[in-house]
């Protein structure tokens, strides 16, 4: 009777295992379709998870702008302006922009923009804010009147927040700015005026009276808040104010904004040579790794690859939510190494299980022992990668930040893939077969 019960329970487990396998492979197939295939639903175009990640200007076409500088500036001021422009553009999803000066007279800014109408128009708009001019806050709309607060001397940071359907741009001032703000409110009270005027480049901003900016709140400790109901509009104002804090002055009437084609470097190469070579490199290296895994570990290898595939789909989902990630040469490699790091703990476990089997243990015991022995290896590798990645993501800039964020993601996935996915799949598989040959486990029989 006990034996029948055991058999029944094993059969039930097998049914659940089959359901589990169907579910896992369904997730992989559906996930892969959404991850890599562009689709159209009615009037909506879906570009795929992989395509949704922005591309950097070193592998795709872009838009550039050249601005004439007014006056001459020290190298320090120029460097500060260039860093500030890159950081503002990165804030608005143009991660790997190129900003440099030509002969110390012209400032050139390049950002990526795929050649579709919306991306191009957004890129043009973003660049057109750069030479908007200095941000100032005044008590009246006279251009000759001195300002109380200006972007160059008084602004610390400009942030966006949302509350109950309204979006706010908050300008945070430094100590000198806070003092000026106090003076402004005192003067406003004395003149019983409640209107504050924003100036950009010496002109009231914006030009149209319908788009007039209203100051939501002035806090004399050093913040000025503006509010709008539309987020896109709020972002535009934030960008305009941010560029209004540059330490250099750019000629508002002398600019060139136009399209540039993707970068190439070899005489015999086509425009897409870099991206084609990188995709070929990724596919070939990962294919070689998959073939090795399948040949060396057969069923175990197939299970580890299944876990890796699930992790890739999950990583693509998360990467779409990472605002500071943009595909460039180094980012493509970061994915390859991330996938290898996800697979590494599983490889160590498979390798250990094979060695355990050679000592004379059964297949089940070898796998159990290997799981036990490599548990901490997986956790430590995952945690270390996560910590190192987070440090690089927080401290580093541009490609170093993308490398860090992706490493941290794959560090977490390494733990998930080995301890949850691979372990689960292995348990389900062992319900159906315990044939060591299918796992490529061999030993010299005594």
């Amino acid at each position, binding site marked *: 009777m006990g034996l029948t019960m055991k058999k029944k329970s094993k059969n039930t487990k097998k049914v659940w295992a089959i359901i589990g396998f169907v579910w896992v492979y369904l997730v992989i197939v559906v996930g892969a379709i959404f991850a890599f295939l562009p689709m159209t639903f009615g009037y909506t175009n879906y570009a795929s998870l992989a395509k949704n990640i922005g591309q950097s200007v070193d592998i795709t076409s872009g838009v550039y702008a050249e601005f004439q500088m007014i006056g001459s500036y020290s190298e320090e001021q120029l460097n500060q302006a260039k860093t500030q422009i890159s950081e503002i553009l990165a804030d608005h999803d143009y991660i790997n922009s190129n900003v440099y000066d030509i*002969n110390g007279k012209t400032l050139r800014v390049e950002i990526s923009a795929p050649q579709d109408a919306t991306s191009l128009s957004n890129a043009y708009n973003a660049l057109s804010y750069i030479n908007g001019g200095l941000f100032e806050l005044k008590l009246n709309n006279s251009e000759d009147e001195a300002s109380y607060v200006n972007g160059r001397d008084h602004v610390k940071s400009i942030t966006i927040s949302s509350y109950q359907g309204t979006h706010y741009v908050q300008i945070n001032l430094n100590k000198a700015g806070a003092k000026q703000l106090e003076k402004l409110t005192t003067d406003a009270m004395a003149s019983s005026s409640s209107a504050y005027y924003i100036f950009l480049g010496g002109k009231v901003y914006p030009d149209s009276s319908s788009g007039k900016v209203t100051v939501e709140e002035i806090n004399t400790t050093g913040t000025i808040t503006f509010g709008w109901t539309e987020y896109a509009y709020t972002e535009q104002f934030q960008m305009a104010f941010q560029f209004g804090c540059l330490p250099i002055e750019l000629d508002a009437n002398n600019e060139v904004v136009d399209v540039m084609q993707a970068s190439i470097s070899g005489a015999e190469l086509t425009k897409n040579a870099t991206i084609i070579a990188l995709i070929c490199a990724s596919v070939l290296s990962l294919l070689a790794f998959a073939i090795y895994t399948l040949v060396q570990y057969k069923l175990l290898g197939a299970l580890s690859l299944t876990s890796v595939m699930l992790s890739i789909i999950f990583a693509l989902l998360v990467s779409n939510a990472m605002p500071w990630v943009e595909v460039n040469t180094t980012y493509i*490699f970061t994915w390859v190494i991330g996938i290898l790091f996800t697979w*590494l703990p599983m490889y160590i476990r498979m390798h250990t299980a094979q060695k355990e089997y050679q000592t004379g243990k059964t297949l089940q015991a070898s796998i159990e022992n290997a799981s036990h022995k490599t548990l901490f290896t997986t956790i430590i590798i995952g945690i270390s990668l996560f*910590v190192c990645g987070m440090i690089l993501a927080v401290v580093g800039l541009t490609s170093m930040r993308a490398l860090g964020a992706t490493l941290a993601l794959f560090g977490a996935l390494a733990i998930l893939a080995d301890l949850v996915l691979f372990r689960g799949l292995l348990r389900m598989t062992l319900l159906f077969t315990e044939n060591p040959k299918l796992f490529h486990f061999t030993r010299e029989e005594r």
Partner: protein
Amino acid sequence: MKIQNLTQKLKYFLTISITLILIGVIVLLSAGIRPSVELMGGTQIEINITSQENADKSLETAVSELKQQGIVVEHAFTENKQLESYIVVRTPNKTVSQNTIQSVANALGVETSSISTASISATVSTKYIVMAVVGLMLTAVAVFIIAWIRYGILSSVSMLLSTLHATLLMFSVVIFTRMLFTTGVLVGIAVATILTIVYNICIFEKHREHVDVVTLDKTKTKVHSIEQAVTFTLPTMLILSAVIWIFSIVGMFSGAIGVIMFMLSLLLATVISIYSSAFFGMSLEAKLQQNAQQIEKQKRSKNNS
């Protein structure tokens, strides 16, 4: 492959590492680094090709001619400026001679007045490099703390030293091989550091697993356990490296100099990380463990007497 006598090999590894780092320092002091245009600026060449029929073909011709003239072409692309079309080439070379401009003009069949040059600044701020170095240092410190908690002070010291060794050695080799120092190379250095950390963890975990079994045998010491752990982990490192090598070698076919430099730095990173973790780091660890064991033995014999 069986790894043996790690403690005796430490002096050879030290000699190799110190020599390579010294060569790097000498080259750095005498010739400096070879920075890319994105890090230190250079020259931008603009060629008006509005009259040319095929922009891509003109671009190829211009790039090929500039390379023949010894100009390092880091970026080359076409762009529109109002109603005109231009080829833009960026090079780390600080000057471009009139002869070069003339030969490019001849190759393209345009007037020399259609070609202009201007000096350009770096596209990557020094803040990027500073923050990258700070990031790597903080990573090393974080790893030191994790290793201290898990493996003890001696192992954390050898892990920190091997990580710093990998970073320093990468810098040195990049400098004395006169590789173009790009942001990709900087990422390559970060990859070497991270690979060294991961390899170290794999070896230390195996060592922890072996150490109790090995030391039960009175004829064997912790050094044997370390050697066994390295022997066990080395194939894993080689497999990971092989995949990265395939990526790097295929990637080099892109022809873009920035990509080639990145791929070369990856090849270097795989070799240096294995050397730093499995050989330099573990021989250091073996020596430290051996010394610690001897000190403990001496203490015990003193107490007994």
